[in-house]
């Protein structure tokens, strides 16, 4: 029996103008957003290639490693097409040098405020806003609408059980919503193949998971629609309630949750942290320099009357000692930085945990967080890159120290030779291929899946709850 009802429901909807308009709009929008995402990704990838190439070109023209300026760029990933997340908010690259801290700078939005004014249109956004609205639009009158038009009584004049009816109804509505979603994502997949984005198997996995998350999300709102429709007797009221629910869960709760967390767990700003770190390192360095100046004068004084060989020895000892002290100082600074930053990140993590736990009351933020995790554009993206870049910085520092490229302290050994060591005796160009290369942090399909499984489960749980709600509410629905 439920099959007949589902079939009737499906036919009812498929022939309506409502379906035509809604399915048309959602298909156009999803396909368009995938296409825009592809265009955007390609532009970004081209920009990345160009930037890296230019950096290497410039570097390979230098004759000394000291004048080489290295940067590590974030490589765009095709998974960003599905959900852009915080990708455009985070800096695209960081300069890599022995002295400076790793800092991601020049985010897409800060560089191009025009983009920031309206932001990007990614498939995640279309699903988030449009699919949920459409799901509500199809179901707000699922039960009470039939009562208003009198068809509900007619149906139950036949030998139909309530549970069969509601199950048929839900399945029918679900298929109605599923149709445009599946079609548009299939077209999206076709676009992804035809435009030659070059998705790996892992990326396809991410895409499939994205579609599954979208279906779960849309189903959630559909079930909610039927639920509210079975709770109220007038369609106008159920529509209003659903609209308020929609506004709250899509627009209000996520924003309010982060802001509440921001108030509840204050985290010092980066500026504060940086100035704390800077002031410590500047102080330590100043001490070191003063100390070094003093020692150098003492040594020179004592070595004044020595024989040239002895003088050389003293000098060599001095240089060794300085090098040791410098290493010691670097270690102290690094240890302090690590401590300050660890505190900072711990605090931030707690803030984040609170914000996201609060936000997850709403299925919309669950969905958003899931897709960001799937695409690797979640909040942790910044930390992942910073960590990878810090590691790379250490590698590169060792390398360039070996090459004697950095502004070493040898400069000070004697004034006469300082210029020589600054510029390098030979005019040979550096071989840039010797330098270590920056490897982007791994973000595989399994990592993505692992990170998002919990939230997906939560979304599924919401679905079950809404299903039970709709089911029970209809069993108790007053048909008169």
């Amino acid at each position: 029996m439920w099959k007949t009802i589902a079939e009737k429901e499906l036919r009812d909807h498929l022939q309506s103008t409502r379906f035509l308009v809604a399915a048309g709009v959602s298909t156009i929008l999803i396909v368009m957003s995938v296409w825009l995402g592809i265009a955007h990704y390609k532009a970004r990838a081209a920009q990345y290639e160009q930037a890296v190439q230019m950096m290497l070109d410039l570097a390979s023209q230098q004759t000394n490693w000291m004048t080489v300026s290295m940067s590590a760029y974030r490589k765009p990933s095709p998974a960003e097409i599905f959900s852009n997340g915080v990708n455009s908010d985070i800096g695209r690259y960081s300069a890599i040098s022995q002295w400076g801290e790793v800092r991601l700078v020049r985010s897409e939005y800060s560089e191009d405020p025009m983009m920031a004014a309206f932001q990007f249109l990614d498939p995640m956004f279309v699903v988030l806003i449009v699919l949920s609205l459409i799901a509500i639009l199809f179901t707000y009158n699922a039960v009470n609408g039939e009562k208003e038009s009198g068809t509900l009584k007619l149906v139950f004049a036949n030998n139909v059980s309530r549970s069969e009816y509601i199950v048929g109804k839900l399945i029918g509505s679900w298929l109605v919503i599923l149709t445009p979603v599946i079609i548009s994502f299939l077209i999206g997949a076709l676009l992804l193949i035809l435009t030659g984005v070059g998705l790996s198997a892992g990326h396809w996995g991410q895409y499939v998971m994205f579609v599954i998350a979208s279906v779960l999300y849309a189903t959630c709102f559909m079930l909610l629609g039927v639920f509210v429709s079975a709770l109220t007797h007038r369609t106008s009221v159920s529509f209003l309630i659903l609209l308020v629910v929609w506004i709250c869960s899509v627009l209000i709760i996520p924003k309010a949750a982060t802001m509440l967390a921001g108030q509840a767990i204050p985290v010092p700003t980066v500026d504060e942290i940086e100035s704390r770190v800077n002031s410590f390192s500047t102080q330590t360095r100043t001490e070191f320099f003063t100390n070094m100046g003093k020692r150098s004068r003492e040594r020179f004084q004592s070595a004044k009357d020595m024989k040239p060989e002895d003088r050389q020895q003293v000098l060599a000892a001095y240089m060794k000692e300085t090098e040791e002290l410098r290493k010691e100082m670097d270690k102290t600074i690094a240890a302090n930085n690590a401590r300050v930053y660890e505190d900072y990140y711990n605090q931030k993590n707690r803030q984040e945990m609170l914000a996201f736990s609060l936000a997850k009351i709403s299925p919309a933020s669950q969905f958003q967080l899931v897709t960001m995790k799937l695409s690797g554009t979640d909040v942790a993206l910044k930390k992942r890159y910073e960590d990878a870049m810090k590691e790379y910085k250490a590698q590169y520092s060792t390398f360039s120290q070996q090459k004697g490229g950095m502004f070493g302290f040898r400069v000070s050994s004697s004034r006469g030779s300082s210029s020589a060591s600054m510029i390098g005796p030979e005019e040979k160009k550096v071989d840039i291929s010797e330098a270590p290369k920056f490897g982007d942090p791994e973000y595989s399909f399994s990592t993505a899946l692992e990170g998002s499984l919990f939230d997906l489960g939560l979304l599924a749980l919401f679905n079950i709850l809404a299903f039970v709600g709709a089911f029970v509410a209809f069993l108790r629905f007053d048909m008169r």
Partner: protein
Amino acid sequence: MLKILLEKELRDIVYSTKFAITFGAASILLLLSFYVGIRNYQESLREYEAAKTANAATIASLTEWTSVQHRVFRKPQPLQVLVNGVTNDVGRTTDMRASGELNLINSRFSSDPLFAVFRFLDLNFVVVIVFSLFAILFGYDAINGEKEAGTLKLVFANRVSRASFILSKLLGSLLALGVPLLVPLLIGCLMLTGFGVPMSGGEWLRLFFIFGAGLLCFGVFLTLSITLSSLVARSSISFLLSLVVWIFSVLIVPKGSVVLAAQITDVPSLDVVESQKRKFTADQMQKRMKQIQGFIRAGSMAGDTSFISRFGAFQDSVNKAYEKERLDFYGRLNEDWRNRKDWQGRWAFGISRIAPTAIFQIAAMNLAGTDVEMKYRYQQELNRYQDSYAKFMQAKTGSTADMMRVVIRRYSGSPTEEKEKPKSLNPTEIPEFGEQQRDPGEAITASLLDVGLLLILNALFFGGAFFSFLKFDLR
């Protein structure tokens, strides 16, 4: 007759459950956005002060001006938290240097991506999403709903002209919905004063213009949906159409136009500009190194004490020439890039103005000073400050030169320096960085086009509703 109809319309709307729910929701959101904005403002002001203090403390702990790393911070403005615009995307911090290009770093969203995920709830957002939805909910069945309910025929059984009916409908709904919205807006103003947010007269004026633009945007959606309602016979269809219009104008057109403009116009990425600059600087550096090398070779062996000061003077003279050359080159590059970017921006915003919400957003951002130009305006201020900072550093250290000189000085510390204990620096000596407030006249002028456009759209749809109702099939 018009008066009776108007009264009926007003009563109809104000007494409905729909009005109670939607108006309640809109007011709560509006007040929430004010509250959040105020808290945000206070918070960022506190952070701003803390960062400034920390910077001063760092400087005070040093003993040499040469080792100072001065930072300046962008001061939060009250209007910026009500209409975020691009505020949170533009860097807040600048490492001040006496020469060279200045960069804006640590934007709110880049340093706190948590807040970038869901963004903030600001006044602009409430107007764009909620006001427009509110308007549509009341407009979509204004005419065809009455037909479906049968009341339309009843009304016209009396001696009522079509013109007076539609006029009362339009004016009635504009009044019944628009005037109540003033209440939460005014409460918001009271909150601003109550929480002690410092607002100048100019800022109040700009805020009222933002309110005006918001109400105009609301009016556009109301008249538009009434037009649709009198064009289509069934209210379910007009609702769908209005919703599609809403989705497109709120969500799709603005975002789409930016991407489209980026496809149409060709602007090189800043990386290219950056790399050109780097190459130029690197070439200069090589040349300069050679000169310095030559100078040192010629002079250093003499070992006389005046070498350091002569070297400083030499460096400064070389620096100045290079600096000028570099600035010219950078200036040309920047200007060229800006011109192309402006052109792209004109395309993007031109296309986006198809959507009334985008028009409002552009107007509001201009009024609040958080428009796309904000970054460039701020950079100009920084450049102006850089001049006075350079003068100050010149006076303190005798040079605006960079690293090179610092290192040389450090290594050659003269014996006299050692005897007197180095004194701590006084950070208040550094010239204060004061941002200029945006001139209210300028902000308002910048928004006039868009406010005018909103007015025209109001008039257009008002007329549209009027004339389409004259032809409406009452049967």
